[in-house]
């Protein structure tokens, strides 16, 4: 179990039950409520790929101090069915409460419930019945019981309900408030001590509650995206919903296409027309996009691709997380061409790397991948509102009227970037081509050895330019540390959390997050590993893909590795255990 921060007030709540019970929505209500009450929150939703049944759960970490990730323990378990108790017994802390409906099951008959646990029976269904509500409102009664157990002011919940249902019939809000109040009273009446004193707090600064997809979507809007195309695929689908919801107000073409092949070809077409264009998917969809991804490379099209990964191959584990498509992102497509792959590690990264991705794509005239995963895409954290004053738009070198005289779409230049004319400019005739082509884009001479070499070398020169433009690695922790950890993507979150804990135990960790995974920052990584006392790589895959890049590009290796490929994100508890073990 995680060591508690002696300075912090921290409570972990888990709501579990069958799919289709609105568990995530109920959990997010709690997250919003505690964020507004001055706490930091981080949630983690686990759900199978089905609509009804199965086991869903929502874990919410609430803390008075800065937090970086989820944790494993549970202080309050809301069990909407018997399975939830059995499945999560191991996570219960000493004195943990189990809130349940005694009409659902008899908790005395569930094997292994620790003596220290406190059962809080709340007749959720009866409460809903008495309030004249509908079955799903038992979640609200349960939320009331959670607050009652903690002794937290109920009005945070009732206000939240009134806001949420402001646009619906008033009696729905009233029924929900009645359920919440009854749940609250039941928990208050029940003799069950809550070990932490939780009250609303003053906090410095505002917070917003966003997941990784929302963060990326907000940045794309800020960056002037004009076309978003996608085929639904977990965990990228919510980004399609985000753009669809905001399309009208922000004047964007949003298309749910017939397949991912169409989505990728459409964004290439949009980019050809000069529109900032983006698509996003997971590994399976990206597999279908690969040929057109290469088309973006040879045609020198500025496209942004979100690749939010989950365990593969094929359909794999649709709703879970993994970091096993790193090599895929770097190598996808036949042939060779420049690309940039950016790997956000948290919501702040997801925002700031996404608007930068559009600039890199435009300046380099080449595809840019944002490589995320389910852990980042799906889960919300309270963060300071994104600093939009940092957002800049750089469309790269564009030919305007009066410069068309000598225009050639694929002019060979020292930088490798050929200034482009947006179609429609009088006199700027061009063919943007999937074939190898000459400076004007014509394929006829593309097979000439001189033309091929000149064009290929021109494109590849952009890779050198990319090295000077891409975001550098990020560092966390002291210069001199007991262990230096190299990582990419969402693994940053649990490792930063573990580093914070270890610091309190007298163990120092420093972290290098490879933010731009391609072009690979070999110089910085070599330097980081070279000056380390001991080194480790932590990555969410089986084969060690980041490690293989280190071996290939830095001609060195690390002392220790930690891998995970069971669909779950690393927990800080696991990371802490690993580090303590390797440091002896």
């Amino acid at each position: 179990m995680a060591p508690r921060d002696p300075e912090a007030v921290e409570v972990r709540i888990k709501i579990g039950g069958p799919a289709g019970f609105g568990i995530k929505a109920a959990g997010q209500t709690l997250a919003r409520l505690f964020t507004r009450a001055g706490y930091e929150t981080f949630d983690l939703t686990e759900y199978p790929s089905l609509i009804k049944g199965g086991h869903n759960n929502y874990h919410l970490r609430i803390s008075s101090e800065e937090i970086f990730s989820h944790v494993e323990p549970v202080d309050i378990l809301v069990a909407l069915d018997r399975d939830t108790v059995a499945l999560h017994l191991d996570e219960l802390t000493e004195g943990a409460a189990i809130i349940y409906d005694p009409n659902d099951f008899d908790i005395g008959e569930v094997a292994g419930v620790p003596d220290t646990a406190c059962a809080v029976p709340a007749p959720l269904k009866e409460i809903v019945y008495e309030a004249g509500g509908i079955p799903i409102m038992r979640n609200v009664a349960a939320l009331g019981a959670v607050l009652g157990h903690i002794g937290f002011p109920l009005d945070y919940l009732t206000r939240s309900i009134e806001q949420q249902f402001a646009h619906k019939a008033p009696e729905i809000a009233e029924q929900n408030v009645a359920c919440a109040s009854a749940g609250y009273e039941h928990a208050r009446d029940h003799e069950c001590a809550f070990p932490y004193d939780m009250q609303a707090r003053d906090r410095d600064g505002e917070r917003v509650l966003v997941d990784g997809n929302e963060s990326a979507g907000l940045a794309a809007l800020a960056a002037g995206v004009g076309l978003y195309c996608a085929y639904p695929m977990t965990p990228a689908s919510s980004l399609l919903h985000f753009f669809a919801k905001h399309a009208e107000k922000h004047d964007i073409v949003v298309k749910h296409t017939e397949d991912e092949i169409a989505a990728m070809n459409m964004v290439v077409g949009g980019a050809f027309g000069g529109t900032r264009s983006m698509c996003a998917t997971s590994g399976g969809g990206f597999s279908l996009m690969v040929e057109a991804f290469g088309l973006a490379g040879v045609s020198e099209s500025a496209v942004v691709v979100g690749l939010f990964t989950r365990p593969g191959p094929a359909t794999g584990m649709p709703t879970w997380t993994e970091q096993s498509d790193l090599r895929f992102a770097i190598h996808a497509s036949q042939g060779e061409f420049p690309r940039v792959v950016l790997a956000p590690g948290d919501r702040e990264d997801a925002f700031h790397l996404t608007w930068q991705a559009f600039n890199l794509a435009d300046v380099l005239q080449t595809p840019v991948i944002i490589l995320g995963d389910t852990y980042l895409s799906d889960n919300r954290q309270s963060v300071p509102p994104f600093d939009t004053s940092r957002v800049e738009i750089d469309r790269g070198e564009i030919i305007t009227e009066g410069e068309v005289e000598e225009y050639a779409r694929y002019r060979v230049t020292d930088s490798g970037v050929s200034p482009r004319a947006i179609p429609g400019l009088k006199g700027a005739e061009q063919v943007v081509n999937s074939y190898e082509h000459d400076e004007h884009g014509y394929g006829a001479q593309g097979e000439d050895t001189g033309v091929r070499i000149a064009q290929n070398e021109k494109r590849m020169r952009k890779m050198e330019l990319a090295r000077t433009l891409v975001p550098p690695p990020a560092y966390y922790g002291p210069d001199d540390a007991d262990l230096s950890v190299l990582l990419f993507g969402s693994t940053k979150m649990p490792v930063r959390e573990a580093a914070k804990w270890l610091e309190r135990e007298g163990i120092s960790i420093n972290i290098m997050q490879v933010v731009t995974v391609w072009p690979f920052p070999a110089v910085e990584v070599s330097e980081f590993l070279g000056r380390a006392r001991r080194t480790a790589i932590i990555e969410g895959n089986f084969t060690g893909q980041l490690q293989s890049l280190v071996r290939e590009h830095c001609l060195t290796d690390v002392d220790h590795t930690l891998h995970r490929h069971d669909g779950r994100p690393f927990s800080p508890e696991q990371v802490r255990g690993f580090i303590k073990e390797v440091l002896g």
Partner: protein
Amino acid sequence: MPEVKEYTTPHKPTWCPGCGNFGMWEALKRALSQLDLDFNEYSMVWGIGCHGNGADFLKTQGFHALHGRALPVASALSLTRPDLKVIVEMGDGDGYGLGMGHFIHSVRRNIDMTCIAHNNQIYGLTTGQASPTTEHLMRTVSTPGGVLEEPVNPLGLALAQGATFVARGFAGDIPHLTELYKQAIGHEGFALVDVFQPCVTWNKLNTFSWFRERVYNLEDEGHDPSDRRAAFELSLTTFHEMTCTPDECRVPIGVFYREDEVPTYNEDATGAGDPGYHKATKPRDISGLIASFG
């Protein structure tokens, strides 16, 4: 008005002497000239195949896309660039094989563009394999025992899917084809012109003379292009027994069906009203939206 010969590039066509693509190329240049479309006012999108090599020969600001994928590229261009006329050229293997999904969905969306299919009923560039429109039982290098499938009926599929402009041309009748192109380019919505374009190298069955003996002009026979059922019936007469005589199998050309005033996808889609690049001149103000997550 640019003259017909101005629509060419310095590159001379590399099609086989006598190829049906020459007639289609000529008709398109005439149509563009007669519609007075300057080189920056229309954008071509090609798939891959012999037809796609035309990307080198026609003066435009265009995109030579992947095999089978011209339509999605063109769809995006149409939706994000309302100021450009978008014209797709695709092949029968390209557009009705690999690209069939995109074809059906583009039709049902009624996206504003013209789709010209070079239908030679064979794979030319890859040296003579059967295509989706090769006639039943015809022997090719990939089907030495004869094609076992029924050919695709592109006009029938388009009509079934609610197409608003469906026409067939013949590369051997350039004046007629020019008129079809002009109507299609002028049509608001998805306009399909499927063109029989004999492959003189690989298709020894559906030759120029085979078509000349069989084609007839729908206008001459009083077909009503607003009659969808009649158009669908006509689409079923496209393919025949290989051995059929000119009397037994006549091939209609002209406008099968036309329906104007149908809303296009472009009209109803969000964001499709003005060029997409106008939206990225300065950062969008999203401060209010960010605050809504608080």
